[in-house]
Structures are given as structure tokens and as C-alpha cells.
């Protein structure tokens, strides 16, 4: 069996996400069709009934987000998938999941926006929406794959992080990665490490649904699991009871932030290519990182010491690595399919120690290797 399981397959990014979700123990999917994410819903509609899970097509993305939160509250591992317009509709309830600390995963396959934009064209314009889309101060975990294999791995990781941190996790694919077909070797199920939310021990009379234990997170009891309590998006005390006390509010919001901020070591992910001796660093993520890698390789053939840094966890952003890079490179180029959303973040962490140049392209086309190569050369000769 294992050898069959591990056979190489040709698979699309969206399909890899769906396969991975099942392997990660996802047993509830609610969604509303939208290009370019629909393959995920279609796969789940086929697969979940066979595994005893639930698939439901809701009336819109607002209710999809609500339904996965409801399901997760009963103990299910629940996800949804969408694209820009639907992601916008989900924002209020994403904030609810943050506030009520409900694990869930939202896959957002980014297309060109704003509004209906170009439904079949790639974009990366939702990077800041993923960070700040819902109102109020809140933590966020958002991961961004560059390949089909990585789409699989990060889906498993997203489900695990949601369970670990009791918070929504966003997987940001772009249309290129979502529809790209690549060779992938699926891991055997027994090789996939799964994390499940910590539940309260049975009969613990001191259990409070919003009091963290030593991993920084409150254990979570399922609806029907014997610890009846209130779940609310209002500011609440450790019992889940609404409160207007500024002391309670301040402590809650700060705990929500630090429960992620204190454990970034478990979340940060990035990789580098030819960075050791690089004088010019290209920062890119998602499909653009593939172009950037090729551009760096070509620049090296021109004797330009270029390298690539690729954040995989976009949020929390591994800014320390930019800080470190900014001390030893002459320039950082940020290539992305938006008008510089991450460039601003990179600039902040570079702190003026080196120039940060934005290579932004927002026309529904993937940034080609040649465009990045050209910019590297310009920066190199100009610098």
C-alpha cells in the first residue's frame, strides 16, 4: 500500500490542498464556489462524504465562514476556500474566530482585484487583507506556498497551527500555484504529523474555557463535551461571559496577540537561495518566487551576486531575517503581484540600512524571470 501511496502523481495546487486537508484530518468543509478556488470545493464535495465528513455548499461566504466556526466548536477540523470577493465577505467572522479562539483554516486563492477584477488572473493583492482584513487588533497566521508540493505541506501545517493556537489560519495561494500542475509524491498517512487541540481533562471542576495553560492557549472543550460555556465575539472574561471592564478587555486583547507573538519560533518559515554571499537580495513569495529564483540564477551567470529570500509564513512576518539581510546586502528588491504591499513591510524591517526597491506588477500577469533579472541588473549597475 505504502508504495502505491507514495507514487509520484501529477497534481494541481488546489487538488494538493484538498488532498492534504483530508490527510490533516479535516472533516468539515463549507464554502461557496468562486474561481480560482472552486476545485477545492469540488474535491471536498466528492471526498468528504466517503470519509464520514461533512461538505456543505452555503448560500454565501459569510455563512460559509460561520458554518466552519460552528462545526469547529463541536470539535471538527473545519476549513473553507475562496478568492478575493469571498475573502472580503468572510472578514467579520474571521474576527469572530480570532476573538472566540476557534481553530479553522481559510484558503484564499488570490486573483487580481479589487472587486471582481480578473477572476482567472493571478494576483497577490490580498496580503494585507489577510493581515488586517477584519477589524480591530488581532493576531494572524498566514502561509504562502510556491509549489504544488508545498501547497500540500502548508495545508497540513495550517490545520495543525490552527489547532495548536486556537486561531484562524489563512493559506494564501495565488492563481498560478493553484492551477499549476506539478509532480508530487504524497507522503504516507503515517508520516504526517497531526496536531490536535488540547482539550480539558474530564471532570476538571476548575476548568475555565478562556484560561490559558502553560502552552499559552486555553484548552478547548467541544460543544456537547460536558463543559457548557458561553462563546461570544464580545469581550469576555475567562468564563466566556461578556464584560465591559477595561481591565478584562485590555488583558484579553493582549493575550490574543501574545499567544501568537510569544511562539513565533513555531510559526516562522522562510527559505533562502544563494543568499550567503549575496549583494543583492530579491524578496518574493508564492509563484513570483519561482520567477525570482530563475532570475537570481541568471544574474549569477552574469557574475552578479544575487540571492533570493522567500518568506513562507507571511504573517507573522519573519522580519528579523530582513533586519539581518539589510546589514549585509547592498539592496533588496521586493517582487510581488501587488503594488508593494510586502515591500512596505520589508522596508520597515530594513530600517534604512539598505535601499528597498519595489518591483510591483498588477495587471493579471505573473512577473516573468526576465523582468526580475533586468531589475537586478539595473540595481547592480546603478548601485
Amino acid at each position, binding site marked *: 500500500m505504502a508504495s502505491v501511496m507514495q507514487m509520484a502523481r501529477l497534481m494541481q495546487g488546489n487538488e494538493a490542498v484538498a*488532498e492534504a486537508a483530508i490527510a490533516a484530518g479535516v*472533516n*468539515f468543509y*463549507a464554502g461557496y464556489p468562486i474561481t480560482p478556488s472552486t476545485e477545492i470545493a469540488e*474535491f471536498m464535495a*466528492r*471526498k*468528504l*462524504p*466517503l*470519509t*464520514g*465528513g*461533512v461538505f*456543505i455548499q*452555503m*448560500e*454565501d461566504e*459569510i*455563512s*460559509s465562514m*460561520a*458554518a*466552519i*466556526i*460552528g*462545526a*469547529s*466548536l*463541536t*470539535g*471538527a477540523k*473545519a476549513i473553507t476556500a475562496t478568492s478575493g470577493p469571498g475573502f472580503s465577505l468572510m472578514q*467579520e*467572522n474571521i474576527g*469572530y474566530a480570532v476573538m472566540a479562539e476557534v481553530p479553522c483554516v481559510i484558503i484564499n486563492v488570490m486573483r487580481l482585484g479589487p472587486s471582481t477584477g480578473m477572476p482567472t488572473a493571478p494576483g497577490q493583492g490580498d496580503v494585507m487583507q489577510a493581515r488586517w482584513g477584519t477589524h480591530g487588533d488581532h493576531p494572524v497566521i498566514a502561509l504562502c506556498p510556491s509549489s504544488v508540493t508545498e501547497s500540500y505541506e502548508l495545508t497540513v501545517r495550517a490545520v495543525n497551527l490552527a489547532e495548536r493556537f486556537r486561531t484562524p489560519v489563512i493559506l494564501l495561494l495565488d492563481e498560478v500555484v493553484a492551477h499549476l500542475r506539478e509532480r508530487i509524491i504524497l507522503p504516507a498517512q503515517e508520516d504526517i504529523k497531526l496536531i490536535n487541540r488540547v482539550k480539558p481533562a474530564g471532570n476538571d471542576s476548575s476548568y475555565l474555557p478562556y484560561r490559558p495553560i502553560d502552552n499559552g492557549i486555553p484548552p478547548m472543550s*467541544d*460543544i*456537547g*463535551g*460536558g463543559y*457548557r*460555556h*458561553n*462563546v*461570544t*465575539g*464580545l469581550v469576555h472574561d475567562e468564563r466566556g*461571559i*461578556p464584560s465591559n471592564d477595561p481591565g478584562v478587555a485590555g488583558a484579553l486583547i493582549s493575550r490574543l496577540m501574545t499567544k501568537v507573538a510569544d511562539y513565533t519560533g513555531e510559526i516562522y518559515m522562510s527559505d533562502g537561495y544563494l543568499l550567503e554571499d549575496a549583494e543583492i537580495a530579491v524578496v518574493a513569495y508564492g509563484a513570483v518566487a519561482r520567477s525570482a529564483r530563475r532570475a537570481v540564477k541568471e544574474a549569477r551567470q552574469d557574475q552578479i551576486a544575487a540571492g533570493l529570500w522567500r518568506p513562507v509564513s507571511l504573517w507573522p512576518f519573519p522580519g528579523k531575517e530582513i533586519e539581518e539581510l539589510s546589514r549585509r546586502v547592498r539592496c533588496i528588491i521586493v517582487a510581488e503581484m501587488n503594488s508593494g504591499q510586502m515591500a512596505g513591510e520589508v522596508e520597515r524591517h530594513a530600517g534604512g540600512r539598505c535601499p528597498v526597491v519595489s518591483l510591483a506588477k498588477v495587471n493579471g500577469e505573473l512577473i516573468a524571470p526576465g523582468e526580475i533579472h533586468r531589475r537586478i541588473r539595473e540595481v547592480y549597475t546603478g548601485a
Partner: protein
Amino acid sequence: MPDVIKEYFRPGSLPHMWCPGCGTGIVLQSFLRAIHHLGYRRDDVAVVGGIGCSARAVSYIDFNTVHTTHGRALAFATGIKLAKPDLQVFVIMGDGDAAAIGGNHLIHSARRNIDLNVLVINNSVYGMTGGQCSPLTPTGSRTATSPYGSLERQLNIVNLVAAAGGTFVARSTAYHAKLTGELIEQGVANKGFSFIEVISQCPTGFGRKNGPSDPAAMLQWQKDKAVMAEKYGKLPEEEAKGKFPIGVLFRDEAPDYTDIYLGMSSRAGRGKESGGKDND
């Protein structure tokens, strides 16, 4: 009769947030008495509310309670019910919650005939935000956002739910507290989407502007205007004017969505075991 406050209110939840004379407490009492009478284990009951004065009731009571976002209670409840079908799921919403911002979810939950027990406390206005008009505000009423009288036509929410596919549709009033409890129990017995509109009073947001504002007089109005459905149907047109029917208004037979889903899933799973094609 149990002392429902002692039995079912979470310790420390009083004082509640409702204004003096508000009908929500009366309706909540009917609800708790019905649950008590049904004899459910509290752990097996989930009560889901939207946002508003009415929906706030869920935070006070000792069940698995989920106080959600404005208008979305039914969608949260759909996830809860489908993921754990053994739970008895109740949903409490205000009229704005259910008919305005949550109107689409109301239509589609009824259409699925998913086994949820829904209570809409209709106080004719948006109480929590200070008495603005809602889709259930009687046309011509003065509210905070219709100072010259509301222009829009009032939605007939029970007809909407019946047309959309709900299989148990009823109406009561805060005054008819006993009837409300009985209807809740009948709704629970219906495996499917059960919907009860309870006409209630908001002396602060509606009564003061439109009169009467005295809570007792508002209850009296409910008593005088509500007529049991069977009787209402026989009233001559002249007499029916200004009155409204209460009791069970509509019933239908249809399979519950949760059952349909589980049936499909188990058939599909068996098909797979017996070598059926799993097209991945």
C-alpha cells in the same frame, strides 16, 4: 413550575441588560420552561443567538451557548448541527437579526429544512441600537430612523419561512407565554426547520414613539389583537382587520437535511467499500 432563574441562569448573570417592561424575559421564561419540560440533558442542548437584545438571552443561560455575529446565527447553527447531529440546536434572534441582515440565511436554512428550532423575538424595531426600523416594523410607525413614519412595507416573516420550505411555522406573543412554550415543544417534535415568531414589546424603542408605551398596555394589545389561527380563519373580513393569527400557521412534511446528508454519506461510503469508483 421550576424557578427558571435559579435553575437555568448562569450564576452571576444578573442583572440582565433589558429595559424595564421588555418582553424578552417573558419569552425566555417560556423557552426555559419548555426545555425543562422536555427534560433534555443540558450538555446536549446548544443555544445559538445572533446580535441584539433578544439574542443576548443566550449568554445568560446554562447550556452550550454561542453568541455569534449579527444576522449569522443560523449559519453558525447549521455548522453545529451538521457536525454534531445529536445536539438539540435552538436559535434565538431578533427581528432585524433574522429578517434584515440574516434574511438570506433564514431563506436557505428553511429551504434545507435543517433540524433547527428557531425563535424570533419580534419587537418591531432594532432594540439594541436604539429603536431604528426593521423589516418587521409596521408601515407608518415612527422609529429613530423613520421620524416621519416608516415608508417600507412590513415583511410577513411567517409566510416567507413557509414559502422557503420550513416545515413547522408558528406565531405567538409575549403575552401568550404558555402558548409560546407549547409551540416550542411542538417545534422540537418536528424533525426539520421549526420557526416561531413571537410578537413582543419594546416600550423604550417602539412604545414611546407610537403608543401605548406602558408595558402592560402593550401586552394588552397583544392579547386583544392575537387570535388563534383556527378562529382567525373564520373571522369575517371586517373583524379580522388589525388582528393577526397565532398558533401553528403552517405545517409540511419533508426530510430533514441532516438526515438526508447522513444517508447520502453512508451510501457513498458503502459504495466505496464495495469497489465503487472514487473519482479523485
